[in-house]
C-alpha cells in the first residue's frame, strides 16, 4: 500500500517534471525559430545592403534601394514620447489604486477602467485617434501655424501612451500591494506623513516592479502596428518634426508586405522585422540590467 503510493507520487512527479521541461523547451524553440526564420529570409537583404540598411534613409521599392533609418527613428520617437506621456499618468493610477483606494467603489471602477483599456482592440484606438484626436491636434497646429496634418508622430505617440497605460499601471498596483504592511506602519510610527510614506517606502520598495511594468509597456509601444498606421501619416521620409508625418517599422511591414512580389523587397521587409525584434530584445535586456542595479542599489 505504502509502496504503491510512493510509486504513484514518483511517477506523478516525473511526468510533471517532463511537462514542465517540454513546455520550457518549446518556448525556447519557438523564440529560436522566429529568429532563425527572420534571419534566413533576410539574408539576401543583409548581404546586399550590409550596414547601409540601417543608416540609409531612402526606402524606394521601385529602384530597389532600402534603408530603414526613417522607420527606426519613427519607432523609437513614437515609443519614447508615448512612454514620457504615459509614465506620470500610470504612476498616478498606480498610487490611486494601490495606496489611496485599495477597496470599495473607486477602486473597482478604476481597476475596471484600466483593465478595459487593456482589452480594447488596437484598431478601435486607431479609429478613435483618427476621428477624435486628429481633428483636435489639427486645431492646435493651425493655432501654432504648423502644417495642419493632424496625423503624425506626436498624434500616434498620444494614442500609444493611452494604449500602454494599463500595462504599466496594472503591474504597478500589483507590486505596490506587495509592500509589507510592517514597513509602512513603521514609517507612520516614526511620524512620516502619507506622502512621505508613499515616496520613501512604497515607491522605493516597489521601484523595480514598477520599472518592469514600464518596460513591458515600452515593448508594447515598439511593436504596435494598426493604431499607429492609422494616425502616423505613413510618410517614408525622415521625419522633419515630431508634429509631422512619419512611419514605424511595424507599420511599414504591415503596409507593404502584401504587395512585395520581388525577392529583395520581401527580404528587406523581413530584415526590418529582424531589426524590430533586435531592438525589442535589446530594450528588454537593458531593462533587466537596470532593474538588477536598482534592486541591488536599494539593498
Amino acid at each position, binding site marked *: 500500500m505504502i509502496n504503491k503510493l510512493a510509486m504513484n507520487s514518483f511517477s506523478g512527479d516525473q511526468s510533471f517534471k517532463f511537462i514542465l521541461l517540454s513546455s520550457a523547451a518549446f518556448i525556447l524553440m519557438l523564440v529560436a525559430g522566429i529568429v532563425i526564420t527572420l534571419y534566413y529570409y533576410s539574408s539576401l537583404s543583409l548581404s546586399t545592403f550590409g550596414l547601409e540598411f540601417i543608416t540609409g534613409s531612402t526606402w524606394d521599392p521601385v529602384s530597389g534601394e532600402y534603408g530603414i533609418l526613417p522607420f527606426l527613428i519613427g519607432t523609437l520617437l513614437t515609443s519614447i514620447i508615448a512612454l514620457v506621456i504615459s509614465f506620470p499618468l500610470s504612476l498616478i493610477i498606480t498610487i490611486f489604486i494601490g495606496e489611496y483606494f485599495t477597496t470599495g467603489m473607486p477602486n473597482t471602477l478604476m481597476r475596471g477602467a484600466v483593465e478595459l483599456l487593456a482589452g480594447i482592440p488596437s484598431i478601435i484606438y486607431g479609429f478613435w485617434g483618427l476621428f477624435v484626436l486628429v481633428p483636435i491636434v489639427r486645431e492646435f497646429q493651425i493655432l501654432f501655424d504648423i502644417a495642419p496634418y493632424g496625423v503624425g508622430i506626436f498624434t500616434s505617440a498620444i494614442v500609444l501612451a493611452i494604449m500602454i497605460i494599463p500595462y504599466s499601471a496594472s503591474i504597478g498596483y500589483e507590486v505596490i500591494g506587495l509592500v509589507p504592511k510592517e514597513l509602512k506602519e513603521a514609517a507612520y510610527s516614526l511620524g512620516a506623513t502619507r506622502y512621505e510614506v508613499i515616496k520613501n517606502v512604497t515607491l522605493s520598495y516597489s521601484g523595480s516592479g514598477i520599472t518592469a511594468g514600464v518596460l513591458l509597456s515600452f515593448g508594447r509601444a515598439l511593436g504596435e502596428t494598426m493604431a499607429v498606421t492609422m494616425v502616423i501619416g505613413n510618410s517614408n521620409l525622415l521625419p522633419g518634426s515630431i508634429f509631422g*508625418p512619419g512611419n514605424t517599422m511595424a507599420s511599414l511591414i504591415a503596409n507593404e508586405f502584401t504587395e512585395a512580389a520581388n525577392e529583395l523587397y520581401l527580404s528587406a521587409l523581413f530584415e526590418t522585422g529582424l531589426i524590430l525584434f533586435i531592438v525589442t530584445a535589446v530594450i528588454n535586456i537593458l531593462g533587466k540590467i537596470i532593474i538588477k542595479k536598482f534592486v541591488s542599489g536599494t539593498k
Partner: protein
Amino acid sequence: MKHILLIIIVSFFVFSCGHKSEHPESEEKTQQEEIEIIGAGATFPYPLYSKMFSSYHGLTEVKINYQAIGSGGGIRQMLSKTVDFGATDAFMNAEELAKADNSIVHIPTCLGAVVISYNLPGKPNLKLSPEIIADIFLGKITKWTNKKIRGLNPDVDFPNQRIIVVHRSDGSGTSFIFSDYLSKVSSEWKQSVGRGKSLNWPVGLGGKGNQGVAGQIQQLPGSIGYFELIYASSNDMPVASILNKSGNFISPGIESVSFAANVVLPADTRVSVTDTDAPEGYPLSSFTWLILYKDLKTNVKSRRKAEELVNMIWWMIHRGQKYAEPLHYAPLPNEAVMISERILRSLKYDGKVILSK
C-alpha cells in the same frame, strides 16, 4: 499551484487531441471538395469577384475560394503553385514571368479607374492637366492658388491653402495605375519616382487602403489624393476631369473607362491603357487580370478541376460581365473578350486542350 498544474495538463490534452483529430478531417476535405477552386490576389476587383463567384456557385455548385491578399501575394502564390489561379492589377513583368516554372497567361476580367479627389469648399469639379497632377504629387505645386490650376479653372474660387498630398501607404494596384500614368506623362516623375505598387513618395501623407485615403481627404481641408472610382460615389466626393492625350477633359465614369480600352490590344493582353490614345477615354483606367498557367497541370490537381476553372473564367468574361457596372467597374470591350476567348481556347491540361468548343 493545483490550478496551474490542472491548466497545464488540460491544455496539453487539448493540444494533443486537437492535433490527432486534425489529420483525418483534412484528408476528408480534399476528397470531398475536389472542385473547390482556390484563387488569390488583387483586392481592387474583389467586390466584383465575390459577386461573380457567389452567382456562379448558385448556377453550377462550383465553389470558388478567393482570397484578396493583394496582387503581389497573388503572384507569389501562383509562382509557388499553392493556388489554382491568381489575380493581379498590374500585369506580370518579364522578370516575374521568367521566375515561373511554366508559361503564364493573363486574362482581363474588367476595367477599373483611379480618380483624383480633393477637399475644397463647395466641392467643385476641377479640370486638371497631366502636368499639374505630376507637379502636385512631386511637391512642386504647393498652393491651390497656383497660376496653372487657376488658369484651367477660372470659375472656381480657390482658398489660399497649401495642398496636402494623400497617397496610399500600403502597396496597391491603385498606386501602380496612378504612377504608371504619371510615368507616361511626366519624364521627371519617371526618373525620380517611377512606377510601382509602393513608391518613394516625395511629399504627402499615406492612408491605408482606398477608404483610408478617402477618409484622410475628407478630414483634411486642402488635401488631394487618388483612389478607386467607386469610393468617390460612395463617399460623395468630387472628382477631377483629366486632360487626355487627344486634348479632351474626360471625367471618370463607366463609359469613359470602357472607351479607354478601345485601342489595339496585344495577343497576350498585357497592356497598360493609362494615358490612352482613345479620344473619349479616361486616362487613369486599367485592366485587371486573372493569371493562369498555360498548362494547368502545373498547379491544378485534376483535369476535371481545370475544366471547371476554365469554364468559370469563360463565364466571367461573358455572362459575368453584367455584374460589373452596378459595382462601378467597366465591362470588357468586345475586342478584349475575343482575345481572351482565344487565350482560354489555347489552355491545356497535360498537353491536351481543355475547351473543346
